[in-house]
């Protein structure tokens, strides 16, 4: 008699099971080394004094007694909340125009709206300096207020977070059952009432999710407040000042925890609302197709045109500033701003960035895809798989700045055998992969979930080892999302600031970080040039991606296109 009545008997394992188990174990170890233990080091640092002795929450009470630091928390919340409100409203209208109206040039607007994704967040701040700074073109429009402060932070934050909000809201608004609107129309419901009783509730979770994502992004962003914040302190810049300026690591750790908690809360609310979103549309729903409505279409066209124009003017100004000889006195064009030798930098940081982006894209994609495959398709070790899944979701809740600081504490410790990766390209790559793990992981998980869960069963019955099936079926079928993930990782590795600001060394300076330092030294034109270099690479990679999708994928994905050809 089986004593443990509810437990299954131990099944024998075949070679794929054993390999899978081994790999799953490796993922646990990797996550412990590169995520959990560093965060643990950060927490313990916040409970220590300068000599490394445990002092409980003394640092925290010190923090609470410091009005200047407390002011930063208030400032962070203020700019994050205001930016979130503005972005959600603008992005909602924009997404509505794209999904629910017959506005012309939708393709163009979608493309323009995604431009901010290609640049580091500081590019927006630099452009704003050119427009509204002390020598800005439109300085008067601010009515004597300075762009250096909350106004600048909010404007730049709105610019760079806009596409993130737009992507979530477009998805959310396109999940709509046209039958609901037909039912409303048959019941003689006014368009306005239908909007408030069907459209808004339908997009409710999308809106909530957007709000929390944007809040977290602005709340934890470092680049923008650094460049355009002036004397307006926020948490992210405080951490930087404590750590880099005053070498007060303990206080840096404490502020990191203050930054981490709201980000965690936002993360869990976001996860919760996303789960709700899925159940709204059933397979029997009929996808909504907008009808022509001249007045609405024209209003939306003008609205989107204004936003598109602003986006173009922002990036256009950054580019213009990068090639102007001496703003605003000598507006002749020149390429000398791209010569960074003068500032003692050279192009090394740019090459480093490209290198970082390549490594992150290649290794990150492999690690993330294999990891999500193990979680989704392995039949054994359910408990372990759940732990790995939890670890994979964690990075999203951890701001880049916090993760970077945690890495210092953990890897710079003398007795850590992994100390050798400190101040190398390796630590930058690892940090960037971990930092952007979650979004990529969710993309590949979704793709894997869409595959028939019985493929593996069939393979087993045909005595084909799972890894062969992985090569022949899983990988080819998942190529499009895999390309998406690699692009996502590449562009983010190019543009990220907050994750790597603490981790670069003399030999591994990065373009985005250099742009900040150039700006700090008053070399705004060179900063703009450096930021634009990142944009060029991002654009080039995106274009290559499009071409690959068209040419290469057409071959490997012939079965996909055949559906369209025959039916």
């Amino acid at each position, binding site marked *: *008699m089986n004593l443990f009545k509810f437990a299954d008997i131990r099944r024998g394992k075949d070679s*794929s099971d054993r390999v899978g188990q081994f790999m799953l174990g490796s993922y646990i170890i990797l996550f412990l080394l590169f995520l959990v233990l560093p965060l643990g080091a950060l927490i313990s640092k916040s409970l220590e004094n300068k000599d490394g002795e445990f002092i409980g929450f003394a640092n925290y009470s010190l923090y609470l007694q410091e009005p200047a630091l407390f002011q930063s928390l208030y400032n962070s919340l203020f700019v994050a909340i205001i930016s979130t409100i503005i972005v959600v409203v603008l992005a909602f209208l924009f997404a509505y125009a794209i999904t629910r109206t017959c506005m012309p040039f939708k393709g163009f607007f979608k493309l323009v709206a995604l431009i901010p994704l290609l640049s580091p967040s500081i590019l927006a701040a630099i452009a704003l300096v050119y427009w509204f700074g002390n020598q800005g073109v439109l300085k008067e429009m601010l009515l004597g207020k300075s762009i250096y402060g909350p106004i600048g932070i909010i404007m730049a934050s709105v610019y760079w977070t806009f596409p993130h909000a737009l992507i979530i809201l477009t998805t959310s608004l396109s999940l709509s059952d046209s039958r609901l609107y037909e039912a409303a129309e048959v019941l003689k419901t006014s368009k306005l009432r239908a909007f408030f009783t069907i459209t808004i509730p339908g997009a409710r979770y999308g809106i909530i999710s957007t709000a929390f994502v944007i809040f977290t992004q602005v709340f934890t962003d470092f680049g923008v407040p650094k460049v355009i914040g002036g004397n307006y302190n926020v948490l992210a810049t405080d951490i930087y000042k404590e750590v880099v300026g005053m070498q007060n690591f303990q206080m840096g750790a404490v502020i990191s925890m203050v930054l981490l908690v709201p980000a965690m809360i936002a993360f869990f609310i976001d996860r919760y609302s996303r789960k709700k979103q899925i159940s709204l549309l059933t397979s029997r729903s009929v996808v909504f197709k907008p009808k022509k409505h001249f007045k609405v279409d024209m209003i939306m066209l003008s609205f989107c045109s204004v936003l598109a124009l602003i986006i173009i003017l922002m990036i256009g100004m950054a580019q213009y500033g990068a090639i102007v000889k001496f703003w605003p006195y000598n507006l002749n064009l020149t390429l000398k701003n791209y010569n960074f030798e003068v500032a003692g930098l050279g192009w090394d940081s740019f090459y480093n960035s490209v290198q970082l982006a390549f490594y992150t894209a290649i290794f990150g994609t492999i690690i993330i895809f294999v990891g999500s495959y193990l979680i989704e398709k392995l039949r054994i070790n359910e408990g372990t798989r759940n732990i790995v899944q939890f670890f994979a979701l964690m990075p999203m809740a951890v701001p880049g700045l916090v993760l970077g600081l945690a890495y210092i504490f953990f890897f710079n410790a003398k007795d850590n055998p992994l100390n050798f990766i400190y101040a190398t390209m390796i630590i930058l790559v690892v940090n960037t992969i971990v930092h952007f793990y979650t979004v990529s992981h969710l993309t590949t998980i979704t793709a894997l979930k869409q595959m028939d869960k019985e493929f593996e069963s069939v393979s087993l019955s045909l005595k084909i080892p799972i890894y062969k099936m992985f090569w022949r079926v899983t990988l080819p079928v998942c190529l499009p999302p895999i390309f998406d993930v690699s692009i996502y990782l590449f562009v983010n590795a190019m543009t990220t600031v907050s994750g790597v600001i603490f981790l670069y060394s003399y030999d591994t300076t990065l373009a985005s970080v250099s742009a900040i330092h150039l700006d700090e030294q008053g070399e705004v034109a060179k900063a703009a040039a450096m930021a634009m270099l990142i944009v060029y690479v991002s654009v080039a990679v995106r274009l290559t991606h499009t071409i690959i999708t068209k040419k290469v994928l057409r071959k490997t994905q012939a079965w996909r296109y055949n559906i369209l050809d025959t039916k």
Partner: protein
Amino acid sequence: MVYLEVKNLSKFFGTFQAIKDIDIEINEGEFVCFLGPSGCGKTTLLRCIAGLETQSSGSIIQKQKDISIEPPSNRDFGIVFQSYALFPNLSVFSNISYGLINNKWKKDDIKKRVNELLELVNLQEHTSKYPSQLSGGEQQRVALARALAISPGLLLLDEPLSALDAKVRVFLRKQIRDLQRKLGVTTIMVTHDQEEAQTMADRIFVMKDGEIIQSGTPNEIYNKANSPFIASFIGSMNFIPASIDDSKKVRCNNIEINCDVGSYSANDNVQLAIRPEEIQFQQENQDDNVVPGVIKEIEFLGSFQRVYFETKNFSDELIIVDVPSSNAKKIKMDINNEMSLYFSKEDARIYSI
């Protein structure tokens, strides 16, 4: 010869027991069906046999070899799923040859084998198409060919026809059955469709709540259902509350029914069960039971007509009578006609409540 034996098999999901101590024996070359409503554990049982689920206790013996703890890759079976599970990026040819390639077949042999299989399922002209270019029925035939390619000793079919249109379903039923006879492969099919089970299986295992509540040939199950659940699940059935009177006769309200009371004793409350197609509007035998009443409604269902019949002093609910359309022409059936029902002693069964 017994090919597959399941002994004392149980499976828990958490504290929920999906399979309760099941024992079955399946003979070589037999086609059996696990039949039951959704959630009865039939798919779980099939997956345990395949090794895709691990049982909590009990053993499985295939060809005298205990395979209870073997991983699926060490067991000898082919499987077909409701969702077809064809690899979307591989052509029909590559799908079918998928299992052959690994087993070190020569190229020419593979080609020959695939063509043989394509012929078997009548899909010769679709070799180079992708699954998405085929209809559901065609896809399921490819899946069948793929499962049979490595000549498994045991073929497992998990609701293979449930996703298909009614017409295709009927056609494939026969094709699968013919194929199975021809190859003589031992086959287990899981289905919730009693008609499917009846037309295809040599033997049916009816399952409910994780247990096998009856097994037998389709004929036995239909005619000698051992519980009201099976009687109503397989075909349709009129149930009429009844009791046994002191003289060991069955009584429905005021009407005495002539039928075999079996082991029931006086004053037992029971139910009388009669299939709609076993009730006539014309008397055939002297000792037929007679119940007078009125036609309330007639549904035209093509080959037969379903009559809803109101009785007095017999049943509170309407009695369903299926009249073959050819017969219906001879009888004048109109709503509100007063008529009498006849059914023989042999066709009336008694179940406890």
